[in-house]
């Protein structure tokens, strides 16, 4: 592998790892505050315990998210100094605002986690709300940076670097509405599905466990709403990509020839050398409708673009299929669940439904990672689209294999450890386990 590939692999790995924790940091506070509110309304101690458990989960995931986010902010320079040296000034504003949001989040998380017994109930709940709001804000700001990389605006490129910089224009580059909404929804969706999956798993083993049924009643509404909203948002996003980044859309769909009334390809494996796709199911005129809301619209194919600006077609196509596939499955499950809820007047908890939710637990995260890969692979070979190639941005430091393997090992170790620690938290709530009693203090304070 070349140093450029090692740098890309390290950045990709760091982001793939961080995204999981960032998503949890955005969504878990919402779930935690919701159960806290429910406890206040009903006086049911289970909801309080649930909110405490979610707070512990948030604390662990937030801490790992914070340190892996720190790694990323250093890696921007350590791996891509030319990118930061030239465009740091153009996109610094959203980064700075993200810093403010992150600050607020960390402060109120401290108060929420350690302050249950020290501050008034109102202030405590307010702190939880602030964590949720600032978590969403920080995801919003950082997604703006990514929007800029996809659709750069707010400067005039010259060989010496950007001139005539307009930071506010750069901050809200074209498509920012779609990308931020899509990302925020995916954070809530992934976390709610993961939480539902965990409690469905326990309910399959201990069908009567009321604590876990209540937990499910917190997770399912958020999971269902986001799973149904996301395809609509995704569609708006795709329409924007079709207009702004036709080559990315072509790669997503493995669409080689420009044609009017283009079909939607489901599945299939693209052969980039032959410029053909084998084994796909084609829905007539589907892509034209999807991309331009017009069955006869012309959709540009990859052949329209020079070979050296093609993204890695097979990877982008595969990731896109995975995202759409998992998204559709989740939407179907949400429909089925809401139907049952409407018929039965309570959230379903039968074996079949619980199995379905257990199996869908990881799908939100899978879709989140796949969607992110579509965006990032789809932008290649550019780090700032049409302006700076990834290869121009990479650090001159040699032997990048060493940090890559080091960070890979560290992330593997941390990932396994987090799963283990979280599992011990969940295990404490299993019926009949000694830890299943309500313990007053959230945090570990001697």
């Amino acid at each position, binding site marked *: 592998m070349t140093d450029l590939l090692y740098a890309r692999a390290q950045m990709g790995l760091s982001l793939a790892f961080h995204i999981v924790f960032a998503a949890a940091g955005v969504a878990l506070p919402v779930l935690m505050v919701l159960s806290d509110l429910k406890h206040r309304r009903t006086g049911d101690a289970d909801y309080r315990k649930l909110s405490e458990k979610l707070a512990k989960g948030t604390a662990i995931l937030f801490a790992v998210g914070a*340190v892996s986010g720190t790694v990323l902010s250093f890696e921007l320079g350590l791996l891509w100094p030319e990118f930061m040296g030239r465009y740091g000034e153009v996109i610094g504003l959203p980064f700075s605002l993200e810093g403010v949001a992150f600050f607020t989040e960390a402060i109120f998380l401290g108060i929420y986690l350690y302050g249950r017994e020290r501050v008034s109930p109102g202030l405590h709940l307010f702190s939880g709300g602030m964590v949720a709001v600032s978590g969403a804000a920080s995801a919003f700001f950082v997604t703006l940076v990514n929007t800029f990389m996809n659709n750069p605006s707010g400067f005039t490129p010259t060989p010496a670097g950007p001139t005539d910089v307009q930071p506010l224009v750069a901050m809200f580059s074209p498509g920012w509405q779609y990308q931020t909404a899509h990302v925020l929804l995916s954070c809530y969706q992934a976390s709610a599905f993961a939480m539902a999956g965990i409690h469905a798993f326990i309910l399959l083993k201990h069908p009567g466990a009321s604590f876990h049924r209540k937990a499910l009643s917190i997770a399912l509404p958020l999971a269902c709403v986001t799973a149904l909203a996301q395809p609509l948002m995704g569609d708006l996003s795709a329409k924007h990509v079709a207009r702004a980044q036709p080559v990315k859309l072509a790669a997503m769909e493995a669409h080689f020839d420009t044609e009017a009334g283009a079909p939607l390809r489901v599945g299939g494996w693209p052969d980039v050398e032959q410029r053909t796709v084998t084994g796909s199911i084609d829905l007539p005129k589907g892509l034209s409708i999807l991309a331009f809301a017009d069955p006869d619209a012309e959709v540009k194919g990859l052949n329209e673009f020079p070979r050296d600006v093609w993204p890695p077609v097979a990877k982008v196509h595969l990731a896109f299929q995975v995202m759409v596939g998992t998204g559709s499955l989740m939407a179907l499950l949400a429909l089925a669940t809401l139907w049952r809820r409407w018929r039965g007047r309570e959230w379903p908890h039968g074996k079949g439904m619980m199995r379905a939710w257990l199996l869908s637990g990881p799908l939100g995260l899978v879709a989140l990672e796949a969607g992110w890969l579509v965006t990032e692979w789809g932008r290649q070979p550019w780090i700032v689209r049409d302006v700076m190639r990834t290869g121009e941005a990479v650090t001159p430091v040699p032997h990048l294999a060493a940090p890559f393997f080091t960070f890979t090992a560290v992330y593997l170790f941390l990932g396994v450890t987090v799963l283990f*620690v979280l599992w011990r938290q969940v295990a404490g709530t299993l019926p009949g386990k000694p830890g299943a009693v309500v313990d007053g203090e959230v945090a570990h304070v001697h």
Partner: protein
Amino acid sequence: MSTETWGLGLAVAGTFVLYALLGGADFGGGVWDLLARGPRKAEQRALIARAIGPVWEVNHVWLIVGLVLLFSGFPRAFAALSVALHVPLTLLVLGIVFRGTAFTFRAYDTRGDVVERRWGVVFSVASVVAPLLLGMCVGAVASDAIRMQGHAVVSGFFASWLSPFALSVGALTLGLFAFLAAVYLTHEARTPELAEDFRRRALVTGGLLFPLALAVLLLSREGAPRVWMGLSQTPFALALHGGTAVAAVTAFALLWTRRFRAARVAAATQGGLIVLGWAVSQAPYLVYPHLTLQGTAAPLVVQRLLLVALAVGLVTVVPSLVLLFRVFGPRGQAPRAPQAPEVPTT
């Protein structure tokens, strides 16, 4: 040089001062966790965990803010430093990762078992290594060892931060962080015995700071001519230097007479002035002798917007911070019924 550029430069320096005073004390807490000893070993560790728990993530954010201001306000300097200091910065990041996660895992995982102790070791070792590396990076920046041709760094990836001067700054940083933590902890302690433990540690490390600072000063003559000149010749830097000495002696006297709350303020002043002294002696250079504030600054419109963002940030962050420290400061932690009675600290 424009007011905006000075303002941003000052903001970067300010975040580093705050990171040293708050984040640095957290690192120092880790050092004392490693060195916990005597009959109250477990209580010492518990005190450190209790003091750091609610605030470490917040304290850590100052580093991120400094970093973001640096790459948004002075992108070329950020790029050059990222290349020249690639190796120590990567190691520093690893230290930060292990410190943060180990602390959290230790706090939230099942208590009292072997696992918890192992996380404790990871936490405290990372807390020693990270300040050393941070100081070595500062030393490299302050010396004239990072050389550039155009935008390219030509001085290699090791020499600049492994020089005797950089190593001495690393040692001073570690000592300073340990000192700050010990002084803060005297005031956090709830029993006189525990306060006494940390008073002794504070006096010893405080005493060590004098020879360490002297070593840095002497080595700077060869290793960091700009700092040497700044520290020994410009009147403003000399005044800062004098202020640092006064604060140091005051902190010492207050510790000696067990006025821990005031000692805290004096020690923080001392630490802040040391960092500020470095920044002032080096200004207007970001990386001596090639990169100045002015030469690497973003366009004026960007600088202005960053200052606005900074002001917005201060308006939201400062009141929240005040709230946080009031809730969890020594006075906010008024003991509830079953706990030990508050100790009169003077």
